[in-house]
């Protein structure tokens, strides 16, 4: 049980470093190097030319939510409130009701996600026992010009399709 001890060299103790000006000028030379390179040729900047160039979205990327449905189009969600319970931002509000199609006892009558409060942590997806909520819509920019439209209802969540195939999604480790 011998711990490996690694002694790190302590910087900043030599005279040249203590005078400070030398190091400042070194640092300024470094930053000026960047400035000069970019000034002469700005094609190598580390920037993405958003919105013209959109980022590539991987399968595991957590985007806007959606609710999945059974093959016959009925909602998979059984209104168990696990997502709402786990949501650290308290952005999900569900209202449960009797379900009459024999798939389960309960179904959501209302399922609202307030995207302005959502922190896109993905806990709801983790918590869901039925894979009913996913964040695989691949919608990168959620924008609008009024607050109300950021509250997604059951309909909105159901009609958004997933951006990836089922195999890809499963492979994504979700």
């Amino acid at each position, binding site marked *: 049980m011998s711990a490996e001890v690694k002694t790190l060299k302590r910087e900043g103790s030599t005279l040249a470093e203590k005078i400070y*000006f030398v190091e*400042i000028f070194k*640092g*300024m030379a*470094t*930053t*000026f190097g*960047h*400035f000069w390179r*970019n*000034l*002469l*040729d*700005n*094609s*190598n*900047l*580390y*920037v993405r*030319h958003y919105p*013209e*160039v959109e980022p590539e979205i991987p399968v595991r990327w957590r985007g806007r939510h959606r609710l999945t449905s059974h093959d016959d189009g009925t909602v998979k969600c059984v209104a168990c409130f696990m997502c709402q319970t786990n949501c650290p931002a308290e952005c999900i509000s569900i209202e449960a009701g009797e379900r009459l199609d024999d798939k389960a006892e309960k179904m959501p009558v209302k399922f609202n996600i307030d995207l302005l409060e959502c922190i896109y942590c993905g806990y709801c997806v983790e918590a869901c026992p039925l894979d009913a909520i996913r964040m695989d819509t691949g919608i990168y920019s959620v924008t609008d010009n009024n607050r109300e439209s950021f509250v997604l209802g059951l309909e909105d969540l159901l009609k958004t399709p997933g951006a990836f195939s089922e195999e890809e999604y499963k492979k994504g480790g979700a």
Partner: protein
Amino acid sequence: MSLLDILLVAIRVAFAAFVPLCFIAVCVWMERRGAGFFQDRAGPNRANIFGFRAAGLVQNLADGAKLFFKEDVISDHIQHKFYFVIAPLIVFFTAVVSFAVVPFADTLVLNGKSYVMQGIPIDIGILWFLALAGFSVYGIILAGWSSTNKYGLLGSLRSTAQVISYEIPMGLAIVSLLVVYGTVNLNGMAQYQGQLLFGFIPMWGIILQPVGFLIFVIAAFAETNRTPFDLAEGESEIVAGFHIEYSAMKFAIFFMGEYIAMFASSAIIVTLYFGGYQIPFLATDTLINYAKPVAFLLMLGLPAGMYFFAGWIRKNNVSHYPRENDPRVYEGNIYIKGFWGLVILLELILFAILLCKSGGAAAHIFVVLLQICTFLMKVTMMIFVYIWVRWTLPRFRYDQLQKIGWQVLLPAALLNIFITSAFVVALS
């Protein structure tokens, strides 16, 4: 007073008042695009008018319009509303006025009368600047105090303590400079720096007073509240410090005042240590005598410089992603044409000077214009240094700040005075 007198007074005052204001835009633009390039990103380059982005300068207009139309909030909890409103004005006003004593060209002699090329033709020069620079801190102190906000108060407390620590080394650095120059008149200092040391080195302040220069520059950074001395703002720990309660135009006035202060202090540094308006090896008299050759050289140099500038625009003013009929190429071509037009105009002016009588009024005016350009170029470079330092160095810790002020700068400045005086006495 002749009409010429009145005209020159108007020109001088206008120059002293409006050039700093115009330089706000230049400073902000340099700061933001410069910061971008220092950090390998682009900086603001999207705002445009009909597709013309002017390398990002249009962003300034957008920012200005936004700040102008924002709601101007004065919170109810603020008890001293008068001080609250007056504080940004103090910062702004003192910054503008402190530039008024800086000579931007050598004394112009026309028809046997001489005109001092500075906003306010007074002899106290550097003392005026010191006084106003000290006074501008009142704005920050007042702002922080009248905000009735703990962050604001902390910011202004920091600012107060910082000013006390850094005014002293600054003054002492100037003292040693005064020993060298033997005058407080800034124009006198600039003229002094037109001489040559050992016949080949320009006698600039930085050559004569390297230690004094470092002390003065550090103190000037502190005085203008720029990184690494912007503890009064300290976004990370006291949110925004003294201007936390300010919004819209009141904030903008603080913001502009800060940039004018940066411009003014750059101008002072240039005047004290970089020869002011002097072109190296070409003192005013020499320039007047050799106006025609200089003009001729410029006529050759301008198109050459423009050729490379056009190449740079063509290379960099393009979209760096696949795009059909890139509008930026079109935009760049128009800029290039515009600049070529400007070059042709300048060539014509220079040609006119070639045709004029040598050593006459035209030569005098040409020299003044040349010196103004030199001066502004030097100031712009100094402003670049300000920006460069800001994006290189992190903010000091407060104890480090005080330690440097009292334990390093103050003794160094005193020692510098002693050594300088010894030299001056020995040499005279």
